[in-house]
């Protein structure tokens, strides 16, 4: 008995170590559930506020770059407004007012990572501003991510630089669609998968978001083709894509609110009658 106590005294810490590791592994395993529990409380809000303050200060040093980006975006939008488009008016069928399908909310990135294989960022708009999980995030020049969790004034978003976030995209020229999957390496490149080899592609072709997505509107530019190889396993292309969004300098973004997403999802989830 005495020997047993001695043994426990000498090596008890190994057991303690194992217990702590098991707790840590449970936390890793329950990562998503745990996020929801922790992210909604005051501590997380405080941490994000502090990080936001830091970003605010750092912003002053980036204003020149930011102005340039916004000016470029303004120019693009000016080209999109009705007055800068030539339109045929048909006397017989009058054009009806188009329905509003998407709304955009401008907000700022307060914390962002690009170095992990599962990257997240946090924006300074949350439930009170109408942000909900599954809304898309776009940057002035491309796509950025998807909201996964919201607190009162902040939202946690999966970055496009996340190995488990495939995005449905298509080639602008031919409209063939595939899936954009990040390989966890460079934050400037991602891979476009599942484009069949009979499709003609060229270096420099533009890739945009596809019509299948309930998260992003169709036609948001994503990137250009840098190079491509054929995957020997399944015979599809692996297309290396240079992303338009500069994730290492992500500052101002827009939350995309698709007004019909509930309706579309409800229809997709409705089970066919047997």
């Amino acid at each position: 008995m005495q020997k047993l106590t001695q043994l426990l005294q000498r090596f008890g810490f190994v057991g303690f170590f194992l217990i702590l590791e098991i707790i840590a592994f449970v936390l890793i395993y329950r990562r998503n559930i745990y996020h929801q529990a922790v992210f909604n409380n005051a501590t997380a809000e405080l941490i994000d506020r502090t990080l936001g303050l830091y970003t605010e200060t750092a912003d002053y040093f980036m204003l020149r770059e930011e102005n340039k980006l916004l000016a470029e975006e303004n120019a693009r939008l000016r080209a999109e407004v009705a007055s800068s488009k030539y339109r045929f008016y048909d006397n017989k069928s009058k054009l009806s007012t188009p329905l509003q399908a998407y709304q955009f909310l401008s907000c700022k990135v307060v914390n962002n990572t690009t170095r992990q294989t599962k990257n997240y960022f946090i924006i300074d708009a949350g439930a009170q501003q109408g942000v909900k999980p599954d809304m898309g995030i776009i940057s002035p020049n491309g796509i950025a991510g998807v909201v996964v969790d919201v607190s009162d004034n902040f939202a946690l978003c999966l970055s496009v630089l996340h190995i488990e976030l495939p995005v449905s995209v298509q080639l602008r020229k031919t409209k063939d669609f595939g899936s954009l999957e990040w390989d966890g390496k460079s934050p400037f490149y991602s891979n476009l998968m599942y484009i069949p080899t009979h499709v003609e592609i060229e270096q420099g072709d533009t890739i945009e978001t596809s019509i299948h997505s309930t998260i992003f509107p169709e036609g948001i530019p994503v990137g250009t083709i840098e190079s491509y190889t054929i995957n020997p396993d399944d015979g599809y292309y692996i297309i290396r894509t240079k992303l338009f969004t500069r994730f290492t300098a992500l500052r101002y973004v827009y939350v995309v609110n698709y007004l019909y997403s509930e309706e579309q999802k409800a229809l997709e989830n409705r089970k066919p009658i047997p």
Partner: protein
Amino acid sequence: MNSLIIKQLLLFFAIALIEIFIVSRMEITYLLTPSIYLFFIIQLPIRTPKYQLLLLAFLTGFVFDIIFHTGGIHAASTTLAAFVRILIIPAFLSAEDYDNNIHPGIYTMGTSRFLFFTFILVYIHHFAWFMLEIFKIDSIWITLFKTVLSAVFSVLLIYIIGLLFYKKKRI
């Protein structure tokens, strides 16, 4: 004893601020992703009770898990590093060091001994971290390469911080 706790708390805050606002924002390449907060565990006095050391390591990792939204990855790897510290520390220190209850550091251990000691712990910490983060065995070679590069860079940063935080005298 109280002043030691206050000093350690202040050190923890300083290290956390450096980690969050400077080191974790270094965008060099995906192969170089340093982190320095393990320095807090490395420099704890060598006669810190084993249970206390493991618990402190777990809590340190847990704090960074909350900040970086990583589940329990930091906690798991930091606890592992603390466990290895308990195992290897007798090989690095003399009886005299034990009597003085030194904080492992550049001036108390000597530069080369401290750097070797730090490298082993940082390497184990980084390797566990990267493996848990990517959770795939088939990318082991790139992970090993990434670990070596990142660990060397982290040790360099810890060395610089060590020079800043401690004056050249025996405590």
